[in-house]
C-alpha cells in the first residue's frame, strides 16, 4: 500500500493573531506553528493502513516555505517514511494553484490512497483535497469519520447535518479526514530521532498566482461590553427577561 499524506504548516490553534504592517498578512513573529491538526488524523490513518497491510510506504508532501520541513519532520516522527517539500515562498489564497502543484507531484507517485485534512485551520478552506481529486480524475470522499479498505475498494462515512453518508469507492482515491476518525499517535523520542535521518526531498516549484487578490486583513469587530446580570439561580429571571425584552432572541 503506497499512501501519500498532504500536510500544511499552520499557526497553533491557541496562537494569538497579529496583523502585520502591510495589513494583508499576519505577523509570524512569536507564533508557534504546528502540523495542521486535521492532518494528524490523516497521518495516523495512513500509518494504520500501512501497518495493517504489512508493507508499503507513507509519503508526506507539503507545499510551503523551508519552514515546512519541520512540519514534514513531525509527520515523519509519527512514523511516515519520507517527505517531499514543494518549496515556494508564497502560497496564494486561491486553492487552485496549490491543488495543481500537488496534483502534478501526486500524479507521478502511483499512490493507492491520498490523504488530506478536511481543512487547514489557518485559511479554513476545505477545497484542496477535492480539487486535487478532480484534477487527477480520482474518486474522493471528504471529511471522513470512518474508513474501511479491502480488496482494492473502500467504504467511508462522512457526517452530514443530522446523519451520516456512507460512500463506496474504488482505489486509488483521495480522502480528507475529520476529527473522530482515529486517535493520532504522539511522536516518541525514538521516532523524533529517526525522523531526522529520513529522506526529505526539496523541490522548487513556481505556483500560479490564482484569481484572488487580498484587499485587507482585519480584526473582527470587538463585541460590545456585556454585563453580569447576577449571581446564582436568583439571577435567572433577570436573564430571561433580558433575552426576551432587550436582546429579543427568545
Amino acid at each position: 500500500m503506497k499512501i501519500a499524506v498532504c500536510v500544511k504548516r499552520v499557526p497553533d490553534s491557541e496562537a494569538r493573531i497579529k496583523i502585520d504592517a502591510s495589513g494583508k498578512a499576519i505577523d509570524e513573529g512569536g507564533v508557534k506553528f504546528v502540523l495542521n491538526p486535521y492532518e494528524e488524523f490523516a497521518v495516523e490513518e495512513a500509518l494504520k493502513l500501512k501497518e495493517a497491510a504489512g508493507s508499503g510506504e507513507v509519503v508526506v508532501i507539503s507545499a510551503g516555505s523551508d519552514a515546512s520541513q519541520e512540519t514534514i519532520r513531525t509527520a515523519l516522527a509519527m512514523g511516515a517514511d519520507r517527505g517531499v517539500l514543494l518549496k515556494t515562498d508564497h502560497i496564494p489564497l486561491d486553492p487552485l494553484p496549490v491543488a495543481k502543484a500537488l496534483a502534478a507531484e501526486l500524479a507521478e507517485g502511483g499512490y493507492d490512497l491520498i490523504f488530506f485534512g478536511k481543512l487547514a485551520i489557518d485559511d479554513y478552506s476545505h477545497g484542496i483535497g477535492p480539487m486535487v481529486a478532480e484534477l487527477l480524475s480520482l474518486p474522493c470522499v471528504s471529511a471522513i469519520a470512518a474508513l474501511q479498505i479491502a480488496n482494492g475498494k473502500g467504504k467511508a462515512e462522512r457526517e452530514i447535518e443530522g446523519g451520516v453518508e456512507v460512500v463506496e469507492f474504488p482505489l486509488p482515491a483521495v480522502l480528507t479526514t475529520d476529527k473522530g476518525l482515529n486517535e493520532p499517535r504522539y511522536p516518541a523520542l525514538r521516532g523524533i530521532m529517526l525522523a531526522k535521518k529520513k529522506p526529505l526531498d526539496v523541490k522548487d516549484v513556481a505556483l500560479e498566482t490564482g484569481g484572488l487578490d487580498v484587499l485587507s486583513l482585519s480584526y473582527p469587530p470587538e463585541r460590545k461590553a456585556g454585563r453580569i446580570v447576577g449571581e446564582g439561580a436568583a439571577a435567572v429571571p433577570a436573564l430571561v427577561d433580558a433575552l426576551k425584552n432587550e436582546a429579543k432572541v427568545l
Partner: protein
Amino acid sequence: MPNVLAILEQRSGDIKRVSHEVLTAARVLADGMGGEVHGLVVGGPGVATDGLGAFGADKVLVASDASLANYQADRYAGIAADQVRKGSYAAALVSATALGKDLAPRVAARLACPFVSDVTDVKYDGAIIVTRPVYAGKANITLKISATPCVISVRSNAVTPKANAKAGSVESVAVSGGEPRARTVEIKHPERAAIDVAEASIVVSGGRGLKGPENFKLIEDLASALNAAVGASRAVVDAGWRPHAEQVGQTGKTVSPNLYFAIGISGAIQHLAGMRTAKTIVAINKDPDAPIFKVADYGIVGDLFEVLPKLTEEIRKAREG
C-alpha cells in the same frame, strides 16, 4: 449578461433554509452586475421548487432524476459545472454545508476557476468582493476575485435571507454525466435527529464545568426547551463525553447562531474563535474571571447545577407565555 448561479440544497426533496441565504447573496452580486439570479436544484423527481422566486430567483433550473435524490458528489458536480459553462455565469454560489463544502471545490476544479470558501459577506464593486473569517474568526480577510467564473461557498447563518420577489420560472435541464467515481450507498439517520450545531439558530454548549458526561442531561434539557442544538467544548469532546460533531471552536465547528449559551466553558481562545460571531452570547460560569465573560452579552456567575434547572424552567414558561 453577467448572471449568477445559486446552487440550492435539498434534502428529501425539500429545499433547505440555507438556500434562501444563498439566493440572497447571489441577488446582491447580480444586482451589482445588472444580471439575473438563476437557482439550480439537483434532486429526485418532484423536488420542491416553489417559493424560490420569493427570495430573488429569476429562474429555477431543475435537474431531476431518481438517481439524484440523494447527494452524489461526482454527478452533482458534473451537472453544476455544465450549467455554469452553458450559462456563462459570472459566479456560482452554494451554502457551506456538508454538501456545499464537498461540492464547491469540485465544481471549481472542473471549471479551473478560483474558489472561496465560507464567505460571510459578498458585494460587487467593479469586481466581486468577498469577506471571510480566517484563523477561525480571529481575523477577517477581504478578497477581490479577479477571474471569471468563480465558485463561492457561503457560511450558514451569515447572510439574512431577504424576500425579493422575482419570477422564479421553473425550467428543466438535462441530467448530464456518466458513472460516478464514488457512490453514496446509504444515509444513516440517528434515532432521534439532532439539530446540527452549525445550522441551529440557538446553540447550548457545555464544557468541563459539567463535571461528567452524565450531567449533559442538563444541557440537553435546556436545548430541548429552546429547540436548540447541543454544542460542546474541545475539552469535553477530547475527554469522550460528547461526539466531535458537537464541538465548537477552531478544530470543531464555527457557528453564528442568534443565541449562544456557553455553560461551564472558561473560554479558551480556540473556543472563542468558533462562536464569537454569535449575535447574543450568554455565559454561565462559577469563575467571575473566566475569559468567556469578556465576549458574553449576559453573564450569570454561579453554580451551573443550580442555575440550569431554574433556567430551563423559566425558559419553558417564557416560551409558553
